[in-house]
């Protein structure tokens, strides 16, 4: 079996009383695209920062290639942000922007060559056409390619992409997603993409992990998870994606609770349609849903949902 590139072990990150990450196990394998799906307030961003070594765990650990993650891994772990216009320094040329990562790590090789290679890989060809341009002189799609070239120039092992296409035009979106997938397939890079866009996951991800209030509540191969979601939260999310047709909409009331006041029992129970419909009662697990926290999904799990009802049905069935 291949060694995992990143291993997150029983990670807890608290900010005062707020439990932003509240028990997460996760492995990212080389050469895979893993989509971390969740709404604002689910703890996705905190988790990503911990993988970069920028936020210290309250307990548990993050291992990058077997060693505890810290900011010194940055050449191996690069980040692509949502808004390319905000991420690029308007006073620098494309070549200076892309070379920045090399300068930070005091790269000894041929800088010009490395920059040109990164630009071509990101689909900006021929690279000479772009080297001396400023961000405002190129289009939005090209800007996001420059961001990706800047991230790829240090030949990282892991790319963390935070909503990489959310601020791009619809017609450009496919090109950028295709580029990310292609980089993974040709270089063995791993991409952890944070998104609330399930269509993006369907387009490029090998696996999906769904986060809710500081926990991963369901994980699985993309097709299995999106074709037949098990956790009631995943089911509800999928039902409201306009891109899923013919599914009855299940609009949850309210919003993700405050991480300072994570509900007792299953953290999803106050909004859970299975509990609300009386189904938990019929399965004889309603007390459990309200009082007992489902076990944290292990990093080795291929397909699992942290839900008492799913477990009860599996046992009965």
């Amino acid at each position: 079996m291949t060694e995992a590139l990143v291993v997150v072990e029983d990670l807890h990150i608290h900010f005062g009383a707020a439990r932003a990450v509240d028990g997460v196990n996760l492995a990212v394998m080389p050469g895979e695209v893993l989509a971390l799906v969740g709404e604002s307030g689910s703890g996705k961003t905190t988790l990503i920062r911990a993988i970069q070594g920028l936020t210290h765990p309250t307990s548990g650990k993050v291992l990058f290639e077997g060693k505890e993650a810290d900011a010194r891994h940055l050449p191996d772990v690069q980040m692509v942000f949502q808004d390319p216009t905000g991420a690029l320094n308007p006073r620098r040329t494309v070549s200076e922007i892309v070379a920045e990562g090399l300068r930070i790590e005091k790269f000894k090789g041929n800088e010009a060559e490395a920059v040109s290679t990164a630009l071509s890989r990101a689909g900006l060809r021929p690279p000479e056409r772009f080297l001396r341009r400023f961000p405002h002189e190129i289009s939005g799609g090209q800007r996001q390619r420059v961001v990706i070239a800047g991230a790829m120039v240090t030949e990282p092992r892991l790319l963390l992409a935070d909503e990489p296409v959310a601020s791009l035009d619809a017609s450009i979106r496919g090109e950028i997603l295709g580029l990310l997938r292609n980089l993974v397939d040709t270089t063995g890079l791993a991409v952890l993409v944070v998104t609330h866009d399930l269509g993006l996951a369907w387009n490029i991800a090998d696996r999906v992990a769904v986060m809710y209030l500081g926990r991963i509540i369901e994980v699985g191969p993309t097709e299995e998870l999106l074709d037949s979601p098990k956790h009631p939260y995943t089911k509800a999310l999928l039902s409201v994606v306009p891109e899923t047709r013919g599914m009855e909409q299940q609009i949850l009331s309210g919003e993700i609770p405050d991480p300072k006041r994570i509900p007792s029992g299953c953290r999803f129970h106050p909004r859970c349609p299975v509990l609300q419909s009386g189904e938990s009662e019929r399965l004889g697990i309603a007390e459990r849903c309200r009082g007992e926290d489902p076990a944290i999904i292990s990093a080795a799990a291929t397909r699992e949902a942290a839900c008492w009802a799913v477990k009860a049905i599996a046992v009965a069935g």
Partner: protein
Amino acid sequence: MTALLSVRDLTVTYRTSQGEVPAVRGVSFELEPGGSLGLAGESGCGKSTMANAILRLLPAGITTTGEVLLGEEDVLTMKPGRLRAVRWTGAAIVFQGALHALNPVQRVIDQITEPIILHKTEPDKKAAEKRAVDLLGQVGIPANRAEDYPHQLSGGQRQRVLIAMALACDPDLLIADEPTTALDLMVQAQVLAVLEKLRAERQLSMIFITHDLSVLTYVCDRLAVMYAGRIVERGPSDQVFERPTHPYTRALAAAFPTIGDRESRMNPSGLKGDPPDPAALPAGCPFHPRCPDAIDRCRDAEPPLLPSGPAQEAACILARP
């Protein structure tokens, strides 16, 4: 039946250092009472400019020509006083980015009450406040939050406050410009459900603007797709989404994959190139440089909007029934 809104040959031209830039280039459409029209297109295609032009909200120095008939009256030639009244009682607009559109130092109830008192659509302050609480209830915000300041509400709640505010003077038409773009999935679904309920209950007409075609299909009966300042395809929304006849609509529809559709799995679909610069539109059909189906004739002239199927129209020489 007379149309509630009738836009005729609307053009909007910006004056910039590069000369005159046409943002909207001759758009015509009608909206029936209770109807809903979805406007799709990418940034720079003119959809938001058009929404603002309909209520004359564009800054000075921008030339607008054509007609915007709201009922019998032309908004573009209205006197300022009449315009002010029409903006709340005839047609109202909901913008994206609810945080910036609300006054941070005023309680939400007062922000909703203000236009009601100003336009005297309720007899007194007390009745106006009652109406404001009513409206908040309709968009799913409980009465005990009415006294809150915007920062005490979540993003989804603030967006719903904006909808309540737009409905304060009971307009016939609601223009929603990317009202759910900044919201999470579940909150977006909640807001769309509110709009749908209001539309059914009060026969409210809606113009809904976004770049996400699938959202529009879900909310609107009719769809118009804009490219480079013009409508390039329109028709009943399911039909346009499922059987697009313009190659640009096909690309937009494919950009957001249907989950479960094997063809799009590991195969994201997009278009080469970028939306054109309105100051330097390509000759002929402005879409031809990016069009996968373009032929030589596409460079000759800009195709008019003509029937391309039952109840459907497209501005493409290859899309004819």
